C-alpha cells in the first residue's frame, strides 16, 4: 500500500513535471499524420524519461512497478493537464508488453522490451476481412519452409483494421499454420518486422476524417521461426494474453482519463451559459456518477486480477461499462456544443479529446466495436457469467 501522503507527493511531482514539460498546442500540431507522429514520439520520450510512460509494467523496467493507486494518480493528472493520449505507443505499451511479458521467451523479451521504451511502435495484426468477431476464422496463411538455409514462415494474405500499422515498426501477427481440427487449433503467433519485404500497408479513411487504422497485405513474407511466440498451432492461447490486456489494464487508464476530462463538459456548460439549466445539470450529474462508477469497477477489476480472483466475464463488464460511458460523455458534448459541433473542424489525429466533440463522438465507437464488440461482450456475460445456454452451433444456408 502506498499511503496518502506518498500519493499526494507523487501528484505534485507529476504536476510540476507537467507544468514544465507538457506539450502545448499539441492539437494544432497534430493536423497532419507526420506532425501527429512527431508530437506523439516526443511526448512518449519525455514521459519515458520522467518515468510516467509505463507505470503498469513490472519494476525491472525504469518507470515500472507503480502501485495501482500511483497509476491512477498519474493517469488522472495527465488527463487533467489535457495531455495527448499515447495512441501511437498504445499497442506497444499494452498489447505487445503483455504478450511479451506473459508468453515470450527470455531472448524475445530482452530484445523487444527495451526497444519499446526507445520508441519502437507495434501494431496488432489480428482481424481480417472475413474474421472480425469470429477471429478464430482467420485465414492469413503461413507455411513453414527452409529458405536460404533458414527456417521461416512464408506468409500470404491480408489483415485489416490494424491501428497505426502505417507507422509501426513491429506487428503482433496471427496466422493460420494448419486448417485441420477446430479452427482455434491451427493458429500461430508471430512477431513481425514491418519492414520485411512483401509487407505493404494501406491506410483506411475513417468517418471522422483521419486514418487511424490500415490494411496490411502479405505477399510471400518470410518471417524467421525464432519470431514465433509459443508453439506452432498454439497462438490462440497467446492471443488471449494480448486481448486480455486490451480489455483490462487499458481501461483503468481510460476511465481515469475520462474522469479527468469531465472538466471539458463543465467548460461547455459554462461557455454556453447553462449553469442554471436544471435538465442539463441533471444529465451532467448522472454522467459524473456514471464515470465515477466506471473508475470504481475498473479499480475493482484490477484489484481482483492482482489478487487472483478475476472471473470470466469481469473484463467484459468493465469494457461495456467504459464504452457506454464514453459514448454518453461525447454525446453530451455534441449536444451541449450546439451548432459549433456541426461545422467540420480541422482534424486532430489520434485522441479521444480532439477538441471537437463530433470527432470524439465518432471516435467513441472504437470502444463499442474494437477489441471484441459490445455484443460479443454481452454474449460472454450472458453465457459464461450468467450461464445461459448457447445458441445451436450449426446453421444451414
Amino acid at each position, binding site marked *: 500500500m502506498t499511503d496518502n501522503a506518498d500519493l499526494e507527493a507523487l501528484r505534485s511531482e507529476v504536476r510540476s513535471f507537467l507544468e514544465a514539460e507538457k506539450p502545448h498546442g499539441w492539437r494544432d500540431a497534430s493536423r497532419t499524420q507526420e506532425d501527429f507522429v512527431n508530437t506523439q514520439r516526443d511526448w512518449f520520450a519525455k514521459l519515458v524519461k520522467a518515468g510516467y510512460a509505463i507505470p503498469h509494467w513490472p519494476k525491472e523496467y525504469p518507470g515500472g512497478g507503480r502501485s495501482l493507486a500511483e497509476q491512477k494518480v498519474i493517469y488522472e493528472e495527465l488527463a487533467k493537464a489535457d495531455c495527448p493520449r499515447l495512441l501511437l505507443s498504445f499497442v506497444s505499451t499494452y498489447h505487445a508488453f503483455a504478450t511479451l511479458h506473459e508468453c515470450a521467451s527470455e531472448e524475445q523479451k530482452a530484445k523487444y522490451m527495451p526497444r519499446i521504451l526507445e520508441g519502437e511502435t507495434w501494431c496488432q495484426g489480428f482481424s481480417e476481412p472475413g474474421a472480425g468477431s469470429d477471429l478464430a476464422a482467420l485465414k492469413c496463411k503461413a507455411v513453414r519452409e527452409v529458405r536460404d538455409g533458414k527456417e521461416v514462415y512464408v506468409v500470404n494474405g491480408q489483415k485489416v483494421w490494424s491501428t497505426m500499422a502505417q507507422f509501426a515498426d513491429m506487428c503482433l501477427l496471427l496466422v493460420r499454420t494448419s486448417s485441420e481440427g477446430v479452427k482455434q487449433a491451427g493458429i500461430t503467433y508471430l512477431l513481425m518486422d514491418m519492414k520485411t519485404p512483401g509487407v505493404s500497408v494501406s491506410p483506411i479513411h475513417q468517418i471522422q476524417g483521419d486514418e487511424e487504422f490500415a490494411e496490411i497485405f502479405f505477399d510471400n513474407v518470410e518471417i524467421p521461426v525464432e519470431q514465433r511466440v509459443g508453439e506452432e498451432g498454439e497462438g490462440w492461447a497467446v492471443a488471449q494474453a494480448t486481448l486480455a490486456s486490451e480489455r483490462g489494464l487499458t481501461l483503468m487508464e481510460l476511465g481515469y482519463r475520462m474522469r479527468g476530462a469531465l472538466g471539458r463538459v463543465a467548460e461547455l456548460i459554462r461557455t454556453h451559459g447553462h449553469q442554471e439549466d436544471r435538465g442539463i445539470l441533471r444529465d451532467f450529474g448522472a454522467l459524473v456518477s456514471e464515470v465515477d462508477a466506471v473508475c*470504481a469497477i475498473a479499480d475493482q477489476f484490477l484489484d481482483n486480477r492482482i489478487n487472483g480472483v478475476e472471473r470470466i466475464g469481469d473484463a467484459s463488464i468493465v469494457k461495456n461499462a467504459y464504452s457506454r460511458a464514453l459514448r454518453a460523455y461525447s454525446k453530451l458534448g455534441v449536444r451541449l456544443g450546439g451548432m459549433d459541433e456541426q461545422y467540420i473542424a480541422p482534424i486532430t489525429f489520434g485522441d479521444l479529446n480532439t477538441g471537437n466533440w463530433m470527432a470524439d463522438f465518432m471516435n467513441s465507437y472504437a470502444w463499442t466495436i474494437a477489441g471484441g464488440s459490445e455484443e460479443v461482450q454481452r454474449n460472454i456475460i450472458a453465457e459464461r457469467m450468467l450461464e445461459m*445456454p448457447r445458441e445451436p452451433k450449426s446453421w444451414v444456408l
Partner: protein
Amino acid sequence: MIELNELTAAAQKAFPADNLSPARDASWELVAEMGWLMIRLPEDDGGLGLDREASTAIHYEMGRVLATTPLIPAQLGLQAVIESQTLADRADWLERLSAGEYAPLHMLPAKVDIAADGTVSGTIGGVFDGDMAVAVVAKLPIGYALIPTDADGVELVERPIWDLSRRMFDLVLTGYKPDPALMLSDADGATAMHDALGPEAHLALAADCLGGASAALDMTVEYMKMRKQFERPIAMFQALKHRAADMKTKIVVAEALLWSRARDEQATRTQIAGAKALASDVFQFVTEEMIQLHGGIGLTEEHPCHLFMKRAMLNLQLCGSLDSLNETVGREALAAMA
C-alpha cells in the same frame, strides 16, 4: 472485529433468499436479536460499533429479500440520537432503541408551520411502519426533534402505497407543542445533523436497491433458463440474453461505486448521493426488464416480479429523487471544475 463475509453469511442464514418479504414483526425481533439495531452504535455506548461497510452489507441483504422490517429508518433514527448534542436523556434513549424500541427518521420531506405560540402543525412524510413507532425523528424548522407518537396533537395516518413490502405513514401534527427535552438539535445544528444523516440514508438505500436488483436478476435468469418457447429455453434467444447481460453489467458497476463510497472515509456527501441516484436508477431498470422478460406471469399478483418493481419505484423517491440528486451532483461537480 466482525468480518464482513461473516456478517453477510449470518444475514443470508437469518433471511434466506427463498423467503421474500418475511413477516415484519418476527423479522424485527430477529434483527434486534442479531444486534443490527446497534450496528453503528459505538462500542462505548454499548453498540457493535461497526462501520459503514458493515451496515451497507446488511442493508444489501435486506434488500435482496425485500425486507418488511424497517431497519433503515430505525438505523437513521438511532444515528440522529447518537449525533445529538442536546437530547436530555440521550443514554436512556440509546438503550431503549438498542433494545428494540422503534424511533424512525422520516424519509420524505416535512411540510410544517410554526405558530406564534411555538406549536407546530403540518405533515411529516415518509414514516415507515409508524404503527410500531414510539417516537419519530423529524426535521422541524426549529431543529431535529423526537416526537412521541402518543403526544397531544400527534396522529399517525397510514398512506397505503403500491409497495407491498413496506407500510408508510404520515405523522400529522395539529398544534403540537415540541418538548424541549426531546430536541435533538437546534435550528443551527439541523444542517450539521442533516449532513450527517444524508450520506447514511443514501448508502443504506443504495444498498437496498442493489440487493433488490441482484435478487431480481437472479430470479429472472433462472426463469429464462427454465421457461421454454419454440422448443428451447427463452434464455437461448440472443435478443433476451443481451438484456440480461446489460442488467448484470449495470448492477455490478453500480455496486462497485457503492462499495467504493462505503469504504472511502473521505467520500463527500454529494458523491454518496450520486451512488444512491445510480443504484435507484439501476434497480428501476432491472425490475422493469424483469417483468417484461417474464411475460404475462410477470403481471400477476401471484408472481413476485411486481414486488420488486414497486419497491424500486418507491426507492427512487426516498431521501431525494433521482432528478434532484443528479442535479445536486451536477451542480457540485460544475462548481468544483471551475
